[in-house]
Structure formats: structure tokens, C-alpha cells
């Protein structure tokens, strides 16, 4: 009976360990994969590590994570220890107040603490960035330090401090040489907890940061939608780092004990007096200050025009080439800090909250909205005209910014249907157009795109209306049309995940941006791109300078460089979108170009039913609300 039980427990334990370590091992193995695939190992390669070290974004995130963790640990350990000591000598009321307040972040869901801090920073107009991130981390780390130091203080003889002071020690000396050494184990374990909490934190950081300052968790969260094995590489690096730290923590004290034991057995050994200084803490502070110092002086060696300056760039994820950014940095000596958004709406909220960027790249209708709300600077024609001349004429002078006074086009394209030629016949597409998303033949085999504007476009076009309609009845009809699709067709509502999934032919069809389709087709020739004759959306994303930009000169420099041939070649080769720069566009589409023969690359022009999207403040809220209800209906239909 007993052995049988042990056997069962042992098996469970082994299974659990497999469960725990399988994903980690898997991740490490695939960080050496020679292809992008996450499912089949095609051969050994270091390329994702090379890409990781070359990626400015990833290295920055690594820096930020480590420095924030070190600083937050140092600050919260000191502050927490001091407070805990003070608490043991103060009134019961104060003690109770502190422990109640400390319970707030521990007893509440983390997201509540996070939005509380976000509201705090917004309400008091504190610009979110590195400082707010640090403040937030210190705020949630201190309670853990207090929690682990207090029990040690309680077991301390209350007369100890009095005795020391009676013997003539100053309060400071009493503190550092009598009390602190006694409670050292509590301080160390508090510091360790603080470090892990800070190093691992995602939710609070996500809401407390801004201006593109991100730690690893935030980076993984924003990048995870598109397969990027460099994430595996950086994760492997972290696993190694953590393992080394853990080994040091666990083994060094054990070794030291062993040595001491041997010495004690030696009759000739005279024990050294133990030093009582809080060595551990001092070490930690020195390390973190040094690290912070390295961080702050890092990129300032260049002698170029903008050396040492920073450009804050805000654009959709995976929308610009690392190589292009590196070239720009080398050319100007400036440092580019990139922040990404998931949707134009999300970008608008950040801008409206007063977050400051030098260059932003939103879509046409959002540029229109930002102009109306007076968030954008008028561009100086003398400084952008040279760039505008080189662009495809279809991308300039559109209704959202008729004279291009506020924006310089970056990428442009259409919205269409990506489909697997082996599963979907072109006849069906030609006959049904957008209605193919309601064709029961493809039930459970379609992707919708998580964007209110594009999904409503497809619905309105399918119903024969303008995508810019302001008629509530037509919008409601479109809403019901979409609800019907999510309730009967079992679609997957995705964003960028569609790219890898369609490149791997995981579903038959989906709504997609032309640039993503170009990438999908260049990866997998079995895929096609179709634009329904019911009409579609022709869109343009443009570079703009917000009113509160801090480095306008550098912003102009960036816009001019990025709109040019060389930069746009790099960007378009990297993401697959169509550059507004005509020369780059033609070269990529011509024979020998990366995207030769791919329909989606050159947007359809001159088609009567196609429209550009206009911003309409009256319908915006209605459509946003409708779309969130479609999504809720979709998840309730599962």
C-alpha cells in the first residue's frame, strides 16, 4: 500500500516537472532553429541571437528590466528596512495603518493596482516613462520587504538597542551595527523577493510606463503576435542569467559554511572578527548605480549633428526595419526610442493623454482626427517638399490632409481577402465578394481582423453602402451582419497573428491588409489576395509631428530620411507593405524585385467603388461600441 502510494506520488512529481520544464526547454531549443517555424526544427543556427543583439529595441528592454530591478530592489530594501525598524517602535495605530495600506497591492488584483497608479500619474500630469516605472516598482516592492523584515525584528530582544545606546553608541551606529546585522537574513530575503517581483513584473509596468520605455515583459507582450524567434533567444539568455544568479545565491553560502567548518576543526585557526556592515546592501547599491551610470552615458560617443539626442517614435508594431533605424542613428548620432501601438485608437488615447513623441505614424482617418483636435504641427513646406515630390501621386493630396500640410505618406495599401488557393475557389470569391465570410462552406475556417473600421468596411461594402456612411440604420444593419457572422461562422478574431497563421495555411481565408498579404504570399505561394468588386478601403499611413514634440529638428531629419528611396527599400523589404516612395515601389515590383508578381503589392487605383476612410466624430463612438459588442458576442458564442 505504502509503496504503491509513493510510486503514484513520484510519477505525479515527474509529470509535473515535465510540465514545468517542457516549455522552457522547448523555447531554448527553438532559439537555435534555423527557420522561423515554431513547430519544426530545421537545423542549428545562431541567427536569432545575432538578430537579438542587433535589435536596439530588445537590448533596450533588457537594460531597462535589469536597471529597474536593481534600483527598485536597492531603494525598496533600504526604505522597507528603515520603515520596518521604525514600525516596531511606533504606536499601534501607525503600525496598523501601514500594514493595512501595504495589504492593498497584495490583496487586490494586480490590474487594479496598475490602473490606480496610471490614474495617479495621469491625474497629476506626471509624464509616464522611466521615472514613473521606477516609482511604481518601488511602490509595490516595499511592502514585501517590510513583510519579510518585520518577523526578524519581532524576535529581536527589545532591549538590545537600548543597551547599545546606553553603552554610548550613536543612534546611527546602533542601527547599522547592532540592529541591521541581527535582521540581515530578513533583509536579504526581502531584497530577493523585491528583485524577482520587479524583474518579472508585467501588469503594473504595462500601465505605468510611457514614451517607449519598456521592460522585457512589455516587449514580449507587444511582439508576441508575430512569430519572432529572437524572443526565444532573449528568453534563453534570461533563463541562463537567472540560473547563474540562483546557483550563486544557493551555493556560495553553502561553500562558505563548509570552509568555516573546516577551519573550526583546525585547532590553530583563530576566527576573524565578523564584519558587521551591511555589505550586501552596499554592494547592491554600487552595482545598481554603476549600471544606471552605464545606461545613461551609453550612446553618446558620436560627433554627428544630433549626437546624444533622442527621437521618440510611435508607430504600429513590426512596421519599420531595424537596419533602417540603425542607419539613421549612425548618420545622425541620435538615439531612436520606439514605442508601438496596436491600433490607431490606442495611439490617439496616448497622444490625447499628453504623452510626447517626436514622430508618429498613424493612418489617414486618425491623422484627420488629430488635425481636428489640434494635436499635430503644421509642417514647414520648405523642409518636406523634397520628400513629397518623390512619392506616388496616389498617396498625396487625399481628403484627410488635402495639401499634405500635416503628414508625409509612409506606406499605403488596400484591405482585402487573403485565401488559400487550394481551399477556396476564385469563382466563390468573384461571386460572393465580402459575403464569402458568411458562406457556411468555410465555417470555422476564417479569420476576422480585430479592427472596427476594417470589419465595418467589409460589412458595409457587402451591404452595398458607403464605408463612410453616417446613417445609423445602415450601421446597425452592418452590426447585425457582423453579429450573424460571429454567431454562425465560428471565426477567429485576430490581429497580427493572421500573418504567420495564413503563411502556414492554418485557415482558408481572412481579412487582411495588403502589406501583410504581400508578406504572406512571399512566404507561401499557395496563398492569394482578392479585392472584392463591391469596393474596398484605400488607406495611407503618414508621418506626422505632434504639437508637443520635443525635438522638431530631428523629427524633420527623420521624416526626410524615411521617406527617401534607400530607407523605404529597407522598410518595405522587411515588412511587405507598399512604400509611398515611387522609385522604391517600382523597383520592388519589377522583375527581380522582392515582390515581383504579387498582386497585393501594388494597390488597385482608379476603381470607382473604392474609398478612403474619413474621420467622423458622430459615428466613431457608435462603431467602436458596436465592434466591442461584436467581440463580446463572438466570445459568448464559443
Amino acid at each position: 500500500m505504502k509503496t504503491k502510494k509513493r510510486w503514484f506520488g513520484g510519477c505525479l512529481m515527474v509529470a509535473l516537472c515535465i510540465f514545468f520544464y517542457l516549455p522552457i526547454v522547448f523555447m531554448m531549443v527553438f532559439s537555435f532553429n534555423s527557420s522561423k517555424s515554431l513547430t519544426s526544427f530545421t537545423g542549428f543556427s545562431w541567427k536569432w541571437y545575432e538578430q537579438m543583439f542587433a535589435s536596439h529595441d530588445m537590448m533596450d528592454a533588457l537594460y531597462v528590466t535589469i536597471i529597474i530591478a536593481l534600483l527598485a530592489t536597492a531603494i525598496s530594501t533600504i526604505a522597507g528596512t528603515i520603515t520596518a525598524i521604525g514600525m516596531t517602535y511606533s504606536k499601534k495605530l501607525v503600525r496598523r495603518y501601514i500594514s493595512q495600506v501595504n495589504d492593498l497591492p497584495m490583496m487586490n488584483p494586480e490590474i487594479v493596482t496598475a490602473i490606480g497608479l496610471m490614474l495617479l500619474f495621469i491625474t497629476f500630469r506626471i509624464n509616464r516613462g522611466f521615472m514613473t516605472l521606477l516609482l511604481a516598482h518601488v511602490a509595490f516592492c516595499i511592502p514585501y520587504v517590510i513583510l519579510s523584515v518585520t518577523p526578524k525584528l519581532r524576535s529581536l530582544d527589545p532591549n538590545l538597542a537600548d543597551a547599545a545606546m546606553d553603552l554610548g553608541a550613536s543612534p546611527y551606529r546602533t542601527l547599522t551595527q547592532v540592529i541591521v546585522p541581527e535582521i540581515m537574513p530578513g533583509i536579504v530575503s526581502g531584497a530577493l523577493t523585491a528583485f524577482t517581483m520587479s524583474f518579472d513584473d508585467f501588469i503594473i509596468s504595462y500601465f505605468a510606463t510611457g514614451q517607449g520605455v519598456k521592460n522585457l515583459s512589455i516587449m514580449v507582450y507587444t511582439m508576441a503576435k508575430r512569430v519572432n524567434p529572437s524572443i526565444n533567444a532573449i528568453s534563453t539568455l534570461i533563463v541562463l542569467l537567472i540560473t547563474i544568479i540562483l546557483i550563486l545565491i544557493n551555493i556560495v553560502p553553502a561553500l562558505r559554511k563548509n570552509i568555516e567548518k573546516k577551519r573550526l576543526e583546525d585547532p590553530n585557526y583563530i576566527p576573524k572578527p565578523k564584519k558587521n556592515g551591511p555589505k550586501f546592501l552596499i554592494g547592491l547599491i554600487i552595482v545598481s548605480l554603476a549600471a544606471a551610470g552605464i545606461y545613461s552615458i551609453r550612446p553618446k560617443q558620436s560627433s554627428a549633428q544630433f549626437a546624444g539626442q533622442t527621437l521618440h517614435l510611435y508607430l504600429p508594431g513590426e512596421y519599420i526595419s531595424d537596419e533602417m533605424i540603425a542607419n539613421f542613428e549612425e548618420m545622425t548620432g541620435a538615439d531612436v526610442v520606439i514605442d508601438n501601438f496596436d491600433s490607431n485608437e490606442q495611439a490617439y488615447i496616448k497622444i490625447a493623454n499628453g504623452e510626447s513623441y517626436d514622430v508618429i505614424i498613424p493612418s489617414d482617418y486618425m491623422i484627420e482626427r488629430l488635425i481636428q483636435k489640434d494635436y499635430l504641427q503644421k509642417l514647414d513646406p520648405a523642409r518636406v517638399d523634397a520628400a513629397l515630390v518623390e512619392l506616388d501621386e496616389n498617396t498625396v493630396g487625399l481628403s484627410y490632409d488635402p495639401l499634405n500640410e500635416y503628414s508625409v505618406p509612409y506606406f499605403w495599401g488596400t484591405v482585402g481577402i487573403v485565401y488559400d488557393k487550394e481551399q477556396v475557389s476564385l469563382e466563390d470569391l468573384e461571386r460572393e465578394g465580402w459575403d464569402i465570410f458568411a458562406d457556411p462552406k468555410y465555417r470555422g475556417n476564417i479569420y476576422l481582423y480585430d479592427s472596427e473600421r476594417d470589419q465595418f468596411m467589409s460589412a458595409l461594402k457587402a451591404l452595398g453602402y458607403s464605408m463612410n456612411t453616417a446613417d445609423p440604420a445602415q450601421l446597425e444593419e452592418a452590426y447585425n451582419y457582423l453579429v450573424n457572422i460571429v454567431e454562425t461562422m465560428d471565426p477567429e478574431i485576430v490581429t497580427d497573428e493572421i500573418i504567420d497563421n495564413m503563411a502556414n495555411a492554418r485557415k482558408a481565408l481572412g481579412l487582411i491588409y495588403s502589406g501583410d498579404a504581400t508578406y504572406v504570399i512571399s512566404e507561401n505561394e499557395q496563398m492569394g489576395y482578392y479585392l472584392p468588386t463591391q469596393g474596398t478601403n484605400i488607406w495611407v499611413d503618414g508621418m506626422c509631428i505632434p504639437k508637443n514634440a520635443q525635438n522638431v529638428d530631428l523629427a524633420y531629419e527623420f521624416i526626410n530620411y524615411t521617406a527617401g528611396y534607400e530607407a523605404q527599400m529597407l522598410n518595405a523589404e522587411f515588412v511587405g507593405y507598399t512604400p509611398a516612395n515611387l522609385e522604391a515601389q517600382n523597383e520592388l515590383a519589377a522583375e527581380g524585385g522582392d515582390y515581383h508578381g504579387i498582386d497585393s503589392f501594388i494597390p488597385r487605383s482608379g476603381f470607382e467603388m473604392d474609398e478612403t476612410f474619413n474621420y467622423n466624430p458622430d459615428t466613431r463612438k457608435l462603431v467602436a461600441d458596436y465592434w466591442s459588442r461584436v467581440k463580446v458576442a463572438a466570445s459568448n458564442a464559443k
Partner: protein
Amino acid sequence: MKTFKNLVIPYVIWSSLMLLLPMLLIVFYSLISSGNTIVNFQFTLANYVRFFTDKDFLLILWRSLIIALETTVLCLLIGYPCAYYISKCSKKKQNFLIMMITLPMWINMLVRTYAWIGLLSKGGLISTILGWFGLHDVELLYTQSAVLIGMVYNFIPFMILQIHSSLTKMDGSLLEAASDLGASPMEAFWKVTFPLSLPGVISGITLVFLPAVSSFFIPKLLGGGSWYLIGNVIENQFITVGEWNFGSAISVIMALIMMLLMALVRKADARAKKEGV
């Protein structure tokens, strides 16, 4: 010791500003209408009314609670036997096993969750293994099971550690006494060991249930866009829609429900202890 008493003053100020004030702000924002400012506002209950009159939001809240409950039950069912097994091992082996369980916790949660995407996707390791057993074309990624796996994976260590620590604190002689008095091992377990480990179970439940209800990145990464939980709704209100007042109201509702549930659990625990004596 008057000298040291003053050491708490900075923290009293700091914690009021950084921990208490944010909570008050959430409550404040949840009670005013959107567009109001901190100096010019009007109290309203509209945000709460909106939540409770929309059956879709209520359904999502309900589903978040259910999935958190499922996670907690799974963690308990798997975690308890493991913790029990560990507590019966030799001291050295116990330390080793506990280290095996804590080690992954040191690695970023996002990173560990991200790793599951590759394992669960079509043609990935898990679906290949299921294929050997004749289960072909099982959709794993972007399903409820994926979300559940992700949650159990992330939160089960808390359960095991809590139960383990309460099991090891137990006085071994109690079990000897029970068996001397004629209790079978089964009886001894249910009458002695289990009741004494309840405090660990309770705090384990708290540590699993709380983050599971409000988690938003696990459903987002492993559930795709179609597995909306209450945490996602809150995130969406703050990050994409920009309706802080409504978002704050949802947070307050969620926090209150949690407090209520935790109070109930504690009460049950206290009663169990009383009856145990």
C-alpha cells in the same frame, strides 16, 4: 525608543500617496462621468448601471469567475498530492524538489506563457503527440483549454508551496498518536493531516484564484482575440477605448467581488478550525 519612531514618517506619507491615493482615485473616477476633471465633476452611478444592465459584460464576468474557479480546482487537485509527496521525502530531496518548483517562477511569466504558443500550435509538439494516440487535428491554441493550461502552469507553484509549508509545519507525533489509537492511514489523513493543512490550502487558493480572475495576458496570448475575460475588458477600456470611468467602475466591481469571496473563504477556514478543535 523615540529616536527610531520617526523613521516611519516618510513611509506613511509615501504609502498614502503611492498605495492609498491610487485606490481612492479609481473609486473617484468610477463615480464621475467621462470628460469630467478632478476639479470640475459631478457624481453619477451611470458607469455601474451600464455594467450591470449589459448582459454581455455580466456574462464575461461570470466566465472569468468560472475559469478562475476551474484553474483553482485543478491546481488544488494536482498540487495537493505533489505537496504531500514532497513533504514525505527526506530533507535533502525536499529542498531539491522545492527548488525545481520555484526555479521556473524566476523566469518571466510572459516568457513562459509565450513558450506555450509554439507547443500548442497546430503541428506543434503537443498535437504531434496527440496524433500518435489517434487524435488528429485537435485545435489547442486559441481555445479555452489553452487558456486553462496557461493559467494552471503559471499559478500552480503558489498552491504547492503554500500547502507544502503547512504540511511540513505539522507535528509528526500527531499522526503517530492517531495510528496508535487505531486509525487507518486513510482515516489519519482525513482526520488529522488534511484539516491541519487547511491554512496552506486556503492561502494557496487565494494566491491562485486572485490572479486567475484578473489575468489578461494569458487569455490574450493563448486565447487569441476570442477569449475575452474581465481583465481584457478593463485593459481594453484603458488602453484602446479610453473610457477610464467605465474601466474604473469595472475594476471596483471586480475588486469588491474578490474581497467578498476572500472573506467567505476565510470565514469557512475559521469555522473549519473551530470544528477541528
